[in-house]
């Protein structure tokens, strides 16, 4: 009975680590590409640096939100895991 809880806990921890690890690869690559392109554009056209910077920030925020989703899922798995709660209540009662 308690072994089930141990398995749920262990799987949650491992999956939480994998979620943030794998989930941050894609946004990192995307943000790197976006920033390098923006820097190249600013170097070519310093006059439009204002517009480029603002658009870059908005774009970075959009890209970053995927990583933030992964982070929130990780936090849910670690701190307020619904499966853990469900099975703990069932086993306890």
């Amino acid at each position: 009975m308690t072994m089930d809880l141990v398995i749920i806990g262990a799987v949650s921890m491992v999956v939480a680590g994998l979620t943030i690890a794998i989930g941050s690869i894609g946004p990192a690559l995307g943000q790197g590409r976006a920033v390098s392109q923006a820097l190249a554009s600013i170097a070519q056209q310093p006059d439009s640096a204002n517009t480029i910077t603002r658009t870059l920030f908005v774009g970075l925020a959009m890209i970053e939100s995927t990583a933030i989703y992964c982070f929130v899922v990780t936090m849910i798995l670690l701190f307020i895991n619904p499966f853990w709660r469900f099975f703990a209540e069932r086993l306890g009662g």
Partner: protein
Amino acid sequence: MTLDISFWELMINTWVVMAVLVVCSWLVSRNLTSEIHPTGLQNWLEAVVEAIDGQIREISAGDSKPYLAFIGTLFLFILTSNVLAIFPSMAQLVEGLPKVYHAPTSSLETTAALALAVFFAVPLFSISRYGLRHYLGTYLKPTPIMLPFNIIGELSRTLALAMRLFGNMMSGVIVVAIAISIAPLVFPVVLQLFGLLTGSIQAYIFAVLAMVYIASASKTQQKAGGK
């Protein structure tokens, strides 16, 4: 641990932020002058308002008057609540509360409320300027097939708006908490400084995104009206 921000702590911190904003504005606007070279706080606040005004003007490519109050309030509230996170003990006045100031924006309730405000502001601004027919028409652009995707996009960007601010601010709180438990002397201060930078950028991004959403619901209509 850090995920649990109690209701009263959240309330008190939100009211602290609002009080800071109101008292600052009251102090400045108590004796306004119309001189060409304003001094002191008035100079500072005018610079802030003009910066916001210029950003809105650039994004909306039109006049900024209808949007200035809403976008400016969003920006200043989020900025203040993020920057105040460098002060440790805001809720200390009341017995039994944790002795730490959590930025209200690091709880999902506050960010969800702010995102919902943007969600309702987009149709309100659009309808008040261009009418209901034009606003509903934007859902059928570019073709009526896009209708479900437009609706999904409307909902998911509201979710993303709330999650982005919440995730960034909460991750700052958690990283500082972890740093304190590992290397309590200098390292958390560096992370707090980094948190100030993140907080300012997130406030800027939230305001800019809100303005972009509002402007995007208006610009398509301007084109449609021109045809």
